[in-house]
């Protein structure tokens, strides 16, 4: 909406000076490396498939986090900056529970499986509650007054508070936790290897482990559940109505604040699940891992079209694959810059994203 307005008022070519800059930069400096990259991909297809599978696993958890951004943005148009850190807290909470239950790689599967499920559900409940409370205390009062800048600044503040909580969590060495937090509070925490590490595609030269399957499987189940919830249930319908027009939804008898809380609860639960899955998959969690993960997921949400649930899943998958490719063919050092670059390019050239609808244009 805003974009079309400004275009109507002032059609200065200077307005697109930034786009011109970016295009010139890309053509001059990035074309040749890109061609080299494609050549390298074709030269070794097995490596390509391996990276694609890594991208698939990464994409699954990125999609889970991205959904939290999209759900909240779709309804209240707030970039919930603290969402990535919520994911980090999810990982810490699940690690604490794993320590409490004294789960080790030696625990028999009959015990380990159900307990892991309990940990997953408890973690999701924890992050969901936390997200709901944060919404109530830090964002609700700022809704609808002035511009959205105040709520965004508040969200940045919450993000920092969460990070600090994660840091202090490292000092938590209660006797029943079986020392899962290690001796150094600030250092990365290591998870026990609870997921089986067998290669399901052994003999093909490509790696897709059982733990990859678990991550992808749990993610897909959660994503499907969310999709059905939003599209098929009454509460989901209320969410969609509130996203479309908050005032009209309120007039139709929808409790808007409760519906917004619901979006925060659902987003929080998915972030918690993602935190636990990634913690177990990678084996580590650090208090500042939420920032990068959050920005990657936000990029995914924007890429798919923010406010669009299917878009977030697609965006997550794409960002997962792109970062896996960048890790392999460019350099891990540059991957973050590549993702941020993509974010900038989408926001500048196509703020509605791939499957964008109108909500994105309100920015």
């Amino acid at each position, binding site marked *: *909406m805003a*974009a079309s307005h*400004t275009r109507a*008022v*002032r059609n*200065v070519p*200077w*307005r697109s*000076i*930034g786009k011109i*800059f*970016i295009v010139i930069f890309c053509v*001059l*400096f990035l074309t*040749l490396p890109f061609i080299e990259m494609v050549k390298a991909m074709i030269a070794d297809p097995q490596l390509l498939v391996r990276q694609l599978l890594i991208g698939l696993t990464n994409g699954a958890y990125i999609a889970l986090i991205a959904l939290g951004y999209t759900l909240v943005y779709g309804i209240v*148009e*707030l*970039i919930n900056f603290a969402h990535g850190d919520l994911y980090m807290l999810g990982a810490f909470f699940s690690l604490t529970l794993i320590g409490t239950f004294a789960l080790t790689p030696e625990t028999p599967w009959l015990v380990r499986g159900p307990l892991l499920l309990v940990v997953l559900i408890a973690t999701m409940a924890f992050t969901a509650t936390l997200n709901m409370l944060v919404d109530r*205390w*830090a964002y609700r009062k*700022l809704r*609808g*007054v*002035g*511009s*959205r*800048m*105040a*709520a*965004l*600044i*508040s969200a*940045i*503040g*919450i993000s*920092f*508070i969460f*990070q*600090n*909580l994660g*840091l*202090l969590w490292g*000092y938590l*060495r209660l006797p029943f936790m079986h020392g899962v937090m290690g001796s150094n*509070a600030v250092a990365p925490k290591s998870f026990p290897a609870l997921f089986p590490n067998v290669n399901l595609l052994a003999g093909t030269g490509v790696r897709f482990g059982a733990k990859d399957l678990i991550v992808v499987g749990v993610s897909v189940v959660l994503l499907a559940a969310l999709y059905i919830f939003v599209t098929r249930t009454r509460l989901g319908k209320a969410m969609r109505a509130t996203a479309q027009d908050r005032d009209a939804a309120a007039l139709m008898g929808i409790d808007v604040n409760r519906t917004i809380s619901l979006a925060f609860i659902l987003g929080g639960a998915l972030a918690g699940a993602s935190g636990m899955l990634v913690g177990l998959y990678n084996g580590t969690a650090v208090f500042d891992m939420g*920032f990068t993960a959050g*920005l990657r997921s936000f990029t995914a949400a924007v890429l798919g079209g923010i406010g669009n649930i299917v878009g977030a899943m697609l965006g997550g998958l794409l960002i997962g694959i792109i970062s896996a490719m960048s890790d392999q063919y460019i*350099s891990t*050092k*540059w991957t*973050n*810059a590549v993702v*941020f*670059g993509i*974010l*900038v390019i989408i*926001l*500048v050239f196509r*703020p509605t994203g791939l499957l964008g609808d109108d909500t994105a244009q309100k*920015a």
Partner: protein
Amino acid sequence: MQIRIRTSMIGAAFGFAIALISGGFAGIFAGLVAGLISGYVVPQAEPLTDKRRAVGQGMIAALVGSVMTILGIVLRNMGIDPIIGEPLNILAVGIAIIGATILCVLVCVVMCVVRTEPPARERIGMAIVVGIILVTYPWLDQFLNLRFMNEVIPVLVFLLMALGLNIVVGYAGLLDLGYAAFFAIGAYAAAMVSSPHFGLSLSFWLAIWVAAATAAIFGLILGSPTLPLRGDYLAIVTLGFGEIVPIAIKNLDKVSLSIWNYPLFVDVDLTGGTKGINPINRPWLPIIGEFSPSNPIPWYFLILGIMLISIFFISRLRNSRLGRAWTALREDELAAGAMGINTVNVKLLAFAIGATFSGLAGAFYGAYISAIFPESFRFDVSVMLLCMVILGGLGNMSGVILGGIIIQFADRLFLPQMSNVVQKLIVASGNESLRDINFASDFRLLLFGLTLVLMMVLRPQGLVPSNGAPRVLPVAAGEARHD
């Protein structure tokens, strides 16, 4: 009455905190600061016209300030020091209490009275009071054995950046989350031309202009793609740039650049990678000679000078045609465009001018510590600057300075010093489990985060609201929603 006491608590809290972290005669300084800040903030909250009322108000504020300061002195010298095993010097405590009270009352009342003068004389009076304190500070520091000097200089550097960020966020209403990038760009530009890194050992006095110009150019380049964006999307894109710049700096230690098949240069070490650039030339002046790292006084006056010139420029800019255009842009971009303001140029100028001050700060900082590393310019620096701007009051220069002093004081002086004291207390109490908590660094993020959230929820206009507070924050009810 209630409001007056609440406002004077800002100064009083400073007095208490400084007295608490520094024992001995330093309490006198705590009283001075309490008086200075109370004397500044109290008349700001409620305009004074009558001299006798001003004296009365100043007395009340000073009373609150000195009571808190004395409380701090007593708590430090008689509560904490005996536990951590430092000798109690009753004479020093007595002198500190008396000195603190006298200075606090004197400064606070004088500043309140000065405020009743007509604007032109008021400004001169304020300048004299603040000027005397600023100019005598280095010797006061030595005399009272405060040892704050090495921290005061970086505080001023960050204040300078906060003033620059205030142009972008406060005046023009463009939420920039990657502002630290310009600090990095300025610091690296200055370091490249005034160090043996490229063999170009320019003087600091030239390098600082190179830094300012480079930062301004990057302000234009990085600002230009964000022109069509608003609000939170703008914030996220600037954040993206703010992250790309340090990553690029870290990895540009072996650059080969070619346009198609024509190599421009091969394997050039542009930024020194993670090792940074080290050493960087220090400034040189006749009489003083080369500024030495062991003597902070010339550095102090140099950054103070840069600050004062910047404040002068920014306040002139604020009231210029461009400054008013920024305000118009911030309030309503559409209407501003319709009124004939060239929104593109005005936005780009906000980015460029804001970046310039950050570049200056970067050049100074690099020369001061004589080395720069890519890690010193991350997102938390940008957020800290944002905290400083928001705490004091968006768009209000004196508010930004106050907010900046509060955040920087807490981050650089109060938390580390308190951490020492708490550490000693923990050792004295014999509690082993708390021993490895580092109070200096483990609560920093919480400090920034709480500042942002509490300010937004409780007092979005900042501690010292400007009379034309920006509408981008929820100041008044019943504002038009912008979507």
